């Protein structure tokens, strides 16, 4: 297993380098001049030229890239044009926020999506299946921003149960931190729960028809044991892949949800950076989430092997 992960990490290096090339050059294609954004009202050509020199914007593109990737490999992702803070520091500040939001959203998605998928597969064609599908479909179709606003209106404004916005670091006050994150995590989680429910349902439908589930029943096991121990265990193999990929997606930041609940995570950081043409920050975030995605892919393959004994022998 360790050698498998090691091998996959090695193979991931060219992938990440390729991503870095794409990130760097695609961004240069964007219209707009970062120096103009930085200089603000003051369009003095000398100052503009000074800024261009300072940020090496006059160098040929490939030199700019090598300079950037060289620094990045040493852990230096550059300085934010806007705030003059190192990009790595900015990322390090936002990462726990996004990580917490992603984790909570995923927990909510799993807690709702997987049992709903099991129930609807087990009771296929009955009103339970129908209800689960309707709820899942609405979970997929209702836009996050609308659900977010509605929840703020209901839960915060009308009922006053949870804070409408803001962020409390988990390390300072865990309970309050969870309370502030609960609504955004719920908004994100319900959308993902629908996806998980659909995947769980179709995997379970296949497994419940299988010969070994019939064998389990022939042994006189209770339906609970048949479904959880014999069916779910096998049905989870494809679902776990989906879960890890969803987590990778969540790490890229939930732009709209973070805006609505004013949560200072990756999503908000990337929006601010794009509007301000803060290249270094955008590059840093995209590179960072791309790496997270690659890692999640490796994790997904590793879990697949753990859950599927057939694979772990190889």
């Amino acid at each position, binding site marked *: 297993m360790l050698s498998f992960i090691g091998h996959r990490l090695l193979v991931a290096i060219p992938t990440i380098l390729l991503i870095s090339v794409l990130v760097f050059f695609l961004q240069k294609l964007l219209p707009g001049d970062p120096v103009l954004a930085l200089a603000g009202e003051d369009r003095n050509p000398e100052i503009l030229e000074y800024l261009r020199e300072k940020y090496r914007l006059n160098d040929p593109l490939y030199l700019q890239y090598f300079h950037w990737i060289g620094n990045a490999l040493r852990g230096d992702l550059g300085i934010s044009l806007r705030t003059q803070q190192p990009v790595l520091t900015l990322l390090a500040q936002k990462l726990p926020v996004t990580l917490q939001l992603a984790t909570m959203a995923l927990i909510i998605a799993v807690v709702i999506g997987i049992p709903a998928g099991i129930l609807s597969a087990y009771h296929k064609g009955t009103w339970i299946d129908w209800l689960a599908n309707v709820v899942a479909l609405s979970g997929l179709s209702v836009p996050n921003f609308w659900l977010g606003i509605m929840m703020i209106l209901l839960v915060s404004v009308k009922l006053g149960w949870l804070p409408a916005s803001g962020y409390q670091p988990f390390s300072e006050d865990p309970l309050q931190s969870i309370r502030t994150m609960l609504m955004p995590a719920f908004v994100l989680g319900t959308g993902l729960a629908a996806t998980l429910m659909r995947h769980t349902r179709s995997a379970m439908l296949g497994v419940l028809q*299988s*010969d*070994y589930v*019939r*064998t*389990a*029943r*022939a*042994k*006189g*096991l*209770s339906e609970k*044991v048949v479904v959880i*121990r*014999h069916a779910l*265990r*096998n049905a989870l193999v494809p679902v776990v892949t989906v879960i890890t990929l969803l987590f990778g997606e969540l790490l890229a930041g939930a732009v709209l949800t973070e805006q609505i609940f004013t949560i200072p995570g990756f999503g908000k950081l990337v929006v601010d950076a794009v509007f301000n043409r803060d290249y270094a920050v955008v590059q840093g975030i995209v590179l960072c989430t791309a790496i997270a995605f690659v890692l999640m892919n490796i994790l997904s393959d590793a879990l697949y092997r753990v*859950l*599927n*004994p*057939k694979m772990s*022998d190889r």
Partner: protein
Amino acid sequence: MNTPLLDVRGLSIRIAGTPRDLVEDVSFTLSAGETLCVVGESGCGKSLTALALMGLLASPPLKVTGGTATLDGQDLLTLPRDQLQSLRGRRMAMIFQEPMTSLNPALRIGDQIAETVQRHQGVSAKEARARALEMLKRVRIPAPESRLDAYPHNLSGGMRQRVMIAMGLANDPALLLADEPTTALDVTIQAQILDLMRSLQSESGSAMILITHDLGVVAEMADKVAVMYAGRIVEMGPAAQIFEDPQHPYTIGLMSSMPALGERTERLVTIPGVVPQANHMPAGCRFAERCPFADATCMKTPPMQDVSTNHHVACWHAPLEAQTEVRASA
């Protein structure tokens, strides 16, 4: 005469919403230690009958529409689910046709056997594991200690079927249902598995219903034979009598389509026509379309008649006299 272990009367099964039964009026009895072979072509309702006894019919769409099946004085067909669950795996067990897919790929062999022991005997995990090991030894799996922690994909088809047998017999069931247990296996392995089943059965004294389409298997294993055609039992009797003196035209056809060793004479005899489809079951005798003796009386369903005390046949024309002629004309 003792009360039989299993008494099936008038068992009928159909697909919900269809006009005719797939399995119709199936009756037989089985005593402890006896082996009944149910023979017939694929789709004749052999497996459905066994699954119905185990309460494992895919329902919906399949449902039992009539009959009783008494085991230990309890009707399996009307038993509440929890009571049926406590019988399954303990008093009756089933071995399936496909050893490759009938074991859970994600669970270790030992755990899959121990699970049924723990469920029914209420013993500790350690004792259940010891019993699993004992069962692996009894079904003669080499290196049983190391196999306990193996996964199904580590084993060959024959070994997996041994595991299935070990699992089925782990709680010493009174009745073992085996649905084509050797069909998916190589011929040499088939003989080994049949040997094993026979010796385990004589050790434990359990009764067995062996479903097969292989007359070689029947000759090897059966005390009693039930021949099924298109959902009905058309002939039933002691194995020796069925082989020596088959009465139903279908049984006669089956017997003559079995190749025998010796001088090669004519081409193998086949029964003309095909088995009727489930949704086009003919009225009356279901074999009439393919039967050389069929006449107007065959438009009515033939009742079971006695040929001798234990030998019964459902044919208007039984007992047939000149069987040699039948063989020639078939």
